[in-house]
């Protein structure tokens, strides 16, 4: 056993120098807005300092002008303005730049500073990850690490090449441009659709990365609406469409969340819940509330059930995989000044706040549990899982919805988040009302 380990270590060491020798890709590295980038050296004609360019009116802001390169007139693009990065003003007016040789023409780009030329093994280049932030991922051909620094390799052909003309470089601008030109005939409107699609895909990706929110048929309708809304909002504010931080992802998801998931339900909200459970009957009721958080929702539901069916045997399984939230649930104290009337009979005033009586608490099992593990609950009359499914991976979403179906009694009710719906609608009968997105198990 130990022999083999030593052997593999040795082999690794032997391999290492060989790896460093292989350098089949050279790139010029430079910085833009504090980050490091590289461009394939085959595309770089020369490194230059630009001092006096001639301003050309009526061009996009990133075109700094034209420049006389030993008799040849080339246009100069400021990559920082192009990518909406901060631009440091230089006192002497001399800018660092690269002259790029593209398939069809020569172009100059301005960057913050030129670093060096590095040689790397092209096998070390990894595909770009969608959250590289400042620069749209489609302009990045790969990422590579060299001496502890990560370099994003820009794809200059995509940036300035034939397909993407300089007139329409940034997707957002391209989008606005094509939107403005909508009535015109030809290719433009069609392009705007595809651009919108990549933007949406990008948002899907970032929501997944930042909030582990997975867009699937469960919440696709909401995403479509929200995307249009978002585009309008951001356009008005003059901001980029892309989501670049957790905060922005939260902002995007703001309209997704259902009401009162983390608060006691007010009376009028409770009314519409009672409408839903109108048709339930029997003497023994089981309720499953995965993702119950601190338990506000659970207590509300349990109290409403008890009021409606005073003689029934009621058991509620409330679960969450957040240890901190679920730990506070059994001894939850309410600070509400005006408690809803349906909950009043089950509250008792304590020193620190308003507590819940054991009459209500004894019906509820609060469990620290991960819904993806084995769920041991009996057949349920009601499953309340608002804003939970969307935060699971697509495969798990299908699995959990399937499990909800299996665990419900005939005519049992499933309540999902306001902006969620089951994947296989044929198995469900929609009984939603204004406050709840609810579905009855379809047994045919």
């Amino acid at each position, binding site marked *: 056993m130990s022999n083999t380990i030593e052997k593999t270590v040795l082999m690794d060491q032997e391999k290492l120098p060989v790896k460093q020798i292989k350098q089949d890709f050279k790139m010029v590295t430079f910085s833009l807005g504090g980050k490091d980038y590289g461009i394939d050296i085959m595309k770089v004609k020369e490194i230059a300092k630009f001092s006096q360019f001639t301003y050309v009116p009526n061009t996009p802001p990133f075109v700094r002008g034209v420049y006389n390169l030993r008799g040849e007139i080339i246009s100069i693009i400021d990559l920082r303005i192009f990518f909406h990065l901060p631009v440091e003003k230089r006192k002497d007016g001399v800018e660092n730049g690269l002259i790029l040789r593209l398939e069809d023409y020569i172009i100059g780009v301005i960057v913050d500073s030129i670093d060096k030329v590095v040689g790397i093994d092209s096998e070390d280049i990894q595909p770009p990850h969608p959250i590289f932030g400042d620069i749209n991922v489609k302009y990045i051909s790969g990422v590579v690490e060299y001496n502890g620094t990560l370099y994003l390799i820009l794809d200059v052909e995509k940036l300035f090449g034939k397909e993407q003309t300089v007139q329409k470089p940034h997707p957002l601008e391209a989008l606005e441009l094509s939107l403005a030109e909508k009535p015109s005939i030809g290719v433009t409107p069609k392009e705007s659709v595809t651009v919108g699609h990549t933007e949406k895909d990008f948002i899907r990706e970032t929501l997944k990365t930042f909030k582990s929110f997975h867009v699937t048929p469960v919440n696709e309708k909401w995403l479509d609406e929200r995307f249009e809304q978002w585009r309008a909002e951001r356009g008005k504010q003059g901001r980029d469409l892309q989501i670049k931080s957790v905060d922005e992802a939260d902002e995007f998801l703001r309209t997704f969340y259902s009401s009162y998931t983390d608060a006691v339900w007010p009376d009028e909200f409770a009314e519409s819940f009672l409408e839903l459970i109108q048709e339930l009957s029997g003497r023994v009721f089981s309720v499953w509330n995965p993702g119950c958080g601190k338990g506000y929702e659970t207590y509300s539901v349990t109290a409403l059930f008890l009021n409606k069916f005073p003689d029934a045997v009621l058991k509620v399984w409330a679960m969450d995989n957040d*240890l901190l939230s679920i730990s506070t649930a059994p001894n939850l104290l309410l600070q509400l000044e005006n408690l809803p009337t349906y909950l009043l009979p089950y509250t008792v005033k304590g020193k620190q706040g308003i507590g819940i009586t054991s009459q209500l608490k004894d019906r509820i099992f609060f*469990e*620290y549990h991960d819904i993806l593990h084995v769920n041991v609950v009996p057949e349920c009359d009601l499953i309340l899982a608002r804003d939970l499914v969307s935060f699971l991976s697509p495969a798990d979403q299908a699995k959990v919805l399937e499990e909800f179906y299996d665990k419900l009694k005939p005519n049992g009710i499933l309540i999902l988040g306001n902006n969620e719906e089951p994947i296989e609608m044929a198995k469900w009968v929609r009984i939603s009302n204004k406050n709840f997105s609810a579905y009855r198990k379809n047994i045919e």
Partner: protein
Amino acid sequence: MRVEYINPFVESAYNVLKEVLNCQVSRGELYLKSTSTPVLGVAALVGLAGDVEGRILFDMSKDTAIKVASVMNGEELKELDDLAKATITELANMITAQAVTKLHDLGFKFDLTPPAIFTGDNMEVTTAEVEALIVPMVIPYGKVEINVAIRERL
């Protein structure tokens, strides 16, 4: 895992380890694990039956077990002999007993089995249909994982 069950185990593990080993004890993040769990090397198992059923597993590496047994006996033990095994059994007993007393006070009624010790390499334990709560306790001699898989009878 019902929330009410968690604290008694965390508290008693902390108290007992601190008392018998007379050393710094810190608790790692609690987490849930489903079905099969690898065992570090020495495992003491206590079964529960009654209103609440399941099992509790005290899991540590052989090295840690020998060191812990040495400290508890006040003499240097070289290997995991009968004395060392008996000592680990006793440790498991003490922690479980204290936790169970707390649960009894909360109104749960059940019986315990005497601890059994398992040793060996590459073992894993599977409890069908119950997810396990892992309470990692870090002591100067290594890590003791308390693996609690219990639930109320449906």
